[in-house]
């Protein structure tokens, strides 16, 4: 088995990386009830129970609205603080959790309703035990 690749790998199941190494978000929508999921291979719909054949893949919007967030001041060893842990409702769904970067750390910076965009970047330089790099999503404030 080969253990390393030239292309970065997707850090999460809602990110796909094409042959050219270009990342994109992917999500699933239930055609029976409309529920959306940040996932690529659910077994069934968690809302209505429709089986996988009722779930369709779609490319979610790259912008969304902050639903809730906290300013993390004490983290685990090796994790740089502070950072903002954010729950974001992408326009049209689904909801995604991630880290909001390039932001201040005041109460105003984590207000519900703040507009943000999704960008892709290396997963903070973290590699797996085989030396593979990963691509992750990051939220950034959407400047007016």
């Amino acid at each position, binding site marked *: 088995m080969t253990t390393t690749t030239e292309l970065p*790998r997707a850090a999460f199941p809602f990110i796909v990386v094409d042959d050219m190494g270009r990342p994109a978000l992917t999500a699933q929508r239930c055609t029976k009830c409309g529920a959306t999921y940040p996932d690529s291979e659910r077994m069934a719909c*968690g809302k209505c129970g429709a089986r996988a054949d009722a779930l369709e893949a779609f490319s979610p919007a790259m912008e969304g609205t902050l639903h809730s967030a906290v300013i993390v001041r004490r983290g685990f060893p090796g994790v740089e603080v502070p950072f903002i842990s954010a729950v974001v409702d992408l326009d049209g769904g689904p909801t995604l959790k991630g880290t909001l970067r390039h932001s201040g750390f005041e109460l105003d910076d984590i207000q519900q309703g703040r507009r943000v965009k999704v960008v892709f970047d290396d997963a903070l330089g973290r590699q797996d035990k085989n030396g593979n790099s990963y691509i992750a999503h990051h939220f950034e404030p959407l400047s007016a």
Partner: protein
Amino acid sequence: MSQDTYIVGIHMIDFGRYPHRTPAQLGAQAALEALDEAGVTIHDIEAVFSGSNYTTMIGQKILQQIGQTGVQIINLVNACSTGASAVRMATTAIRAGEFDTVLCVGVEQMTGLGMLGGAVPGSIPTEGILGSATMPAVFGESGMEYAARSGATFADFAQVAVKNHHNATMNPKAFLRKETPLDMVMEAEMIAYPLTKLMCSVNVDGAAAAVVMSEKKVKELGLMDRAVRIRASSMASAPWQERDPVMHDVNGPTRLAAQKAYAMAGVDPKDIDLVELHDCFASVEIQHYENLGLCGDGEGVKLLRDKTTEIGGRIPVNASGGLLSKGHPIAATGIANMYEIVQHLRGHAGERQVQGAKIGMTHVVGLGTSAAVHILEKM
């Protein structure tokens, strides 16, 4: 034949640090005290429901300490609802008519575990990339969602810690027993805004146990003097909500479990004299005022500000000092909450006694999610 069930003996050990004792010893201590209070022995126990999130086969390990009678033992792992799940299972089994006397135990040894949550095993560590999965962050996000909806402020959340720590100064079993004025709480080390260190429950070692009995057996043994009736025993998991599975939902399952409990008991929220609820973090206590129906939606902050949930108020909440003061040994907490209610219903709560308490409610909720609500009554 379905029949009422009763707690006839209940005990929680002093929660704290026991690095030189085993989880089985802690559980055995709680179990023996509960048996003694009930006036029965291990030979009267027909089944055991036990739970621990960090120790496997805890029930067998406890009975190896206090008496291997060969009875059925079922171990439960249900996050913070584990201890309450054991009592729920006991009531179900007794009502089914299979047993009359059942032992329930919850145990956790947590010294040295550090902050819970965080990095999920996978290709790379995700903490700091996928936001934060630590418990303070997860509950902080739930709290900020509530703040946006209700107008609750950082100071309101901090006030919950002020109240509960004050109550704990009257509870010799609490781990943290000191007054924490509002400025002290707000200026303590910020863990994840809006939660400072004094607004987070502490990992401690602990155990709690209860002997649950059928009404027939209580009468046969003449134990009605100490028996506390379980008027409702109800559990629920998280119903789907639009941010599943990204956001953990502690509100939905609590609401479902509470609604079922009120229906089972045939009582209204206004009939409840005191509540021990799952204040693993200060902010969530206010959310649970609404989830448990102690007030209307959007009225939780007012309930706190009006001092309604203080001892002496209309419906005291967490007279024990709550998880914020007692510490939170995950699987033991559910039964420990019942222990507090039983003390008040028996009039044994000392300085913090809620006067005239007849009916009390306990609540726990474990992420994942599982909520349990019990309604207890002293005849």
